[in-house]
């Protein structure tokens, strides 16, 4: 046996590591899918978007969500009422941020929180609502 060769024990150990990691990976693959909290956040974001998309605005000609995406002026005009509506709609412990083609509003998004989100296409561009437990 020449000195450059790998020791048989180390080879066995590597095989063992692969085996254990394989079993662990099996656990994660089998039970993947979103955790219940993400599913609930996604549903809440979707609900908020549905309500905003089916409500008329004061002085506008479109649903609140479409008014947010239409133009700079309509975004600025609709933003306060949309923010109030979202704060009323979502449960008290859920915070939100809305992103539109003309800017975003809402609470600053924490970098580590579990985020639920929904993106609604309007004819003026997509509007994204993100929610998380605050």
């Amino acid at each position, binding site marked *: 046996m020449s000195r450059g060769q790998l020791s048989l*024990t180390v080879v066995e*150990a590597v095989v063992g*590591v692969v085996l*254990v990691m394989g079993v*662990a990976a099996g*656990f*994660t693959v089998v039970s993947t899918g979103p955790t219940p909290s993400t599913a609930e956040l996604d549903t809440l974001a979707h*609900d908020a978007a549905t309500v905003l998309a*089916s409500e008329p605005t004061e002085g506008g000609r479109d649903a609140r969500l479409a008014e947010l995406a239409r133009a700079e002026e309509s975004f600025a005009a609709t933003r306060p009422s949309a923010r109030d509506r979202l704060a009323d709609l979502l449960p008290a412990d859920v915070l939100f941020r809305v992103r539109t083609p003309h800017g975003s509003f809402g609470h600053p998004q924490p970098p580590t929180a579990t985020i639920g989100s929904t993106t609604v296409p309007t004819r003026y561009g997509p509007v994204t609502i993100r929610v998380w437990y605050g």
Partner: protein
Amino acid sequence: MRAQTNLVALVLALVLVTGATVVGVAVADGALAGADRDPLDRHAATSVADRLIAADSPTTVRANALDVAAVEALNASRVEVLAPPAEGAALRITLDGESVVERGNPTGGVTVRRSVTVVSHLAPVRQAVNLSRGSTVRVPRGVGRATVAVDSGENTTIRTVRADGRVVLYDGAGLDTNATVHLSRYEPTTVRTGAGANASGRVVVTYRRSAAETHTLAVTVDV
């Protein structure tokens, strides 16, 4: 010399395998902790909430907008008809903490929260226009449905009724009707009849405005 090399390799191997086992167990534990432990409860609660606020549900006027009269008439057996997975289960449905339906004691069940609006209809508004003086009726924003009654006088034939230029009622032989028309809820609508200058008769437009309040719907089911 060779025996010592084997010893180093053995220590290295033991460290590798131990480390891998620790990491593996940690990963598996995390996966198990994150898994859903109450799939039946969660399924039942989700389906009750989904069916209650679906756009075509008898309890809603549109998606996520509950009808206040239907909510008041709601009880456990109606919920079961809507959502069979909740059959025989202890359940509680609340709107902003106020109980709507309660059966049994669903402690230990799964709670699903949804954002909804509750729509209540105000008293109907009746707007009549005398065709000898004018031919338009203005319907405010937020009204999706109106009843138009056309009662044309003598020497007058009204063939069309338009809502913001869109023809909603037409009869080539002359309208004499009482019909429901659908309007856009997002902007005020002008209902216009195609009456001429010397027309007589009446057009009555009846509509109901509605008020929508936001609520959080919470459904708890314990199968």
